[in-house]
């Protein structure tokens, strides 16, 4: 039998759909209001995002490659087991040039077994053939002009007013655009939540007046963390600026990172 369509029927169905939509949205608004009361109860209330500007500095000459920061980050943020890291340590081994090759140095070797969490195996080059070797801790570069934020199609990743680049796990659809866009490889797709994840600067810690877990745990104070808007003349970040010449990774990309390094070699990218 052929279905009969009538104007009256179509209009009433349309009206029903609009009424349903309105009821649904009203219910969502109420749910959000109720949630806000409960969710916000655990969050520090006296934190104003617009009154801070966070900055991280790393002194490469102080890093001993113990891997405590990587372990602390995994524990603090529940980062999944396996090759997923919000911060990790890279080991650079630059061998001496072969005699008569006419080069300044040999070919650089970089490795990071399990992010450096459990230390490093013996160097692939014997000790007497190494010209330079050092560790470089890596994490989110806190770009002023973040490529990862520009590509997000749903507004799930953003530059917070205090300088942290964050991900809204409820809005992320796991498309992976930001993972490809990040020039520093600081993002990954979590196999647990199926959303993109990255260093949040331990946002739940810094808003409570604590240091990020990696900074807290670093035994040599290779990582220095501070607030540019509230830094007195004796603040560690001011001292870091005074005592070092700083550089950033991949400056030619124009991302203007707020992760500053002291003592970088040109091989580090």
């Amino acid at each position, binding site marked *: 039998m052929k279905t009969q369509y009538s104007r009256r029927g179509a209009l009433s169905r349309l009206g029903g759909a609009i009424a349903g*939509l*309105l009821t649904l*949205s*009203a219910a*969502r*608004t109420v749910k*959000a209001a109720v949630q*806000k009361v409960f*969710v*916000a*109860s*655990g*969050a*520090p209330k006296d934190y104003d995002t617009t009154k801070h500007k966070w900055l991280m500095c790393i002194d490469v*000459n*102080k890093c*001993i*490659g*113990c*891997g*405590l920061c990587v372990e*602390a980050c995994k*524990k*603090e943020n529940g980062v999944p087991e396996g090759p997923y890291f919000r911060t990790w340590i890279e080991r*650079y*081994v630059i061998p001496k040039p072969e005699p008569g090759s006419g080069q300044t140095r040999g070919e650089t070797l970089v490795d990071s077994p399990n992010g450096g969490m459990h*230390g*490093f195996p013996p*160097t692939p080059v014997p*000790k007497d053939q*190494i010209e330079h*070797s*050092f*560790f470089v801790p890596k994490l989110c570069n806190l770009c002023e002009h973040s490529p990862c934020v520009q590509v997000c199609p749903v*507004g*799930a*990743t*953003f530059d*917070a*007013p205090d300088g942290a680049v*964050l991900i*809204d796990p*409820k*809005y992320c659809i796991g498309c992976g655009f930001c993972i490809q866009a990040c020039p520093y490889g600081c993002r990954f797709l979590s196999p647990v939540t199926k959303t993109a994840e990255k260093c*949040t600067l*331990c*946002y*739940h*810690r810094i*808003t*409570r007046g*604590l*240091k990020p*877990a990696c900074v*807290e*745990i*670093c*035994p*040599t*104070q290779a990582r220095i963390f501070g607030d540019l808007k509230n830094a007195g003349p004796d603040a560690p970040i001011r001292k870091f600026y005074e005592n070092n010449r700083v550089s950033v990774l991949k400056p030619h990309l124009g991302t203007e990172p707020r992760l500053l390094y002291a003592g970088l070699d040109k091989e580090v990218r």
Partner: protein
Amino acid sequence: MRRFKLPPQILRLVLLTLAIVGSYLIARAFLTPASFGEFGWYRGEALVELRSRPPVYAGKQACDECHSDQLQKLAKFEHQTLSCEACHGVSREHADNPDVLPVKLTGSHCIRCHEANPSRPKWFKQIVVRDHYSGKCTECHVPHQPSQTP
């Protein structure tokens, strides 16, 4: 003079377009989260949600509340830059409730940092464990100030 009259098929199209655009605008107004656009093109509420998670590491300040005597001594020692939890392990539960004892230490903590490695900076004290001593580190070194003997 004949008055201009919009042809009925055009009128229907205009009304239909208005209805579609209007219902889109109404739906958007209701379905967009309240805090979207508070600071930028994202949910402002996400900032609150992200900072509501409790910290795992207690931090040196928390240790200072009860063990300030130890921390004052440590401030003069060689291991002054170390956080308590770097060696003593995650102690948040202990900080919240002193009856819960922190995780007991198990060897190899010294070697993790002090085993000789050509990639480590020259200023950092390193030993080749095989050539150094085969017993326990604490037989000759006080952990808080390694130059002292117990």
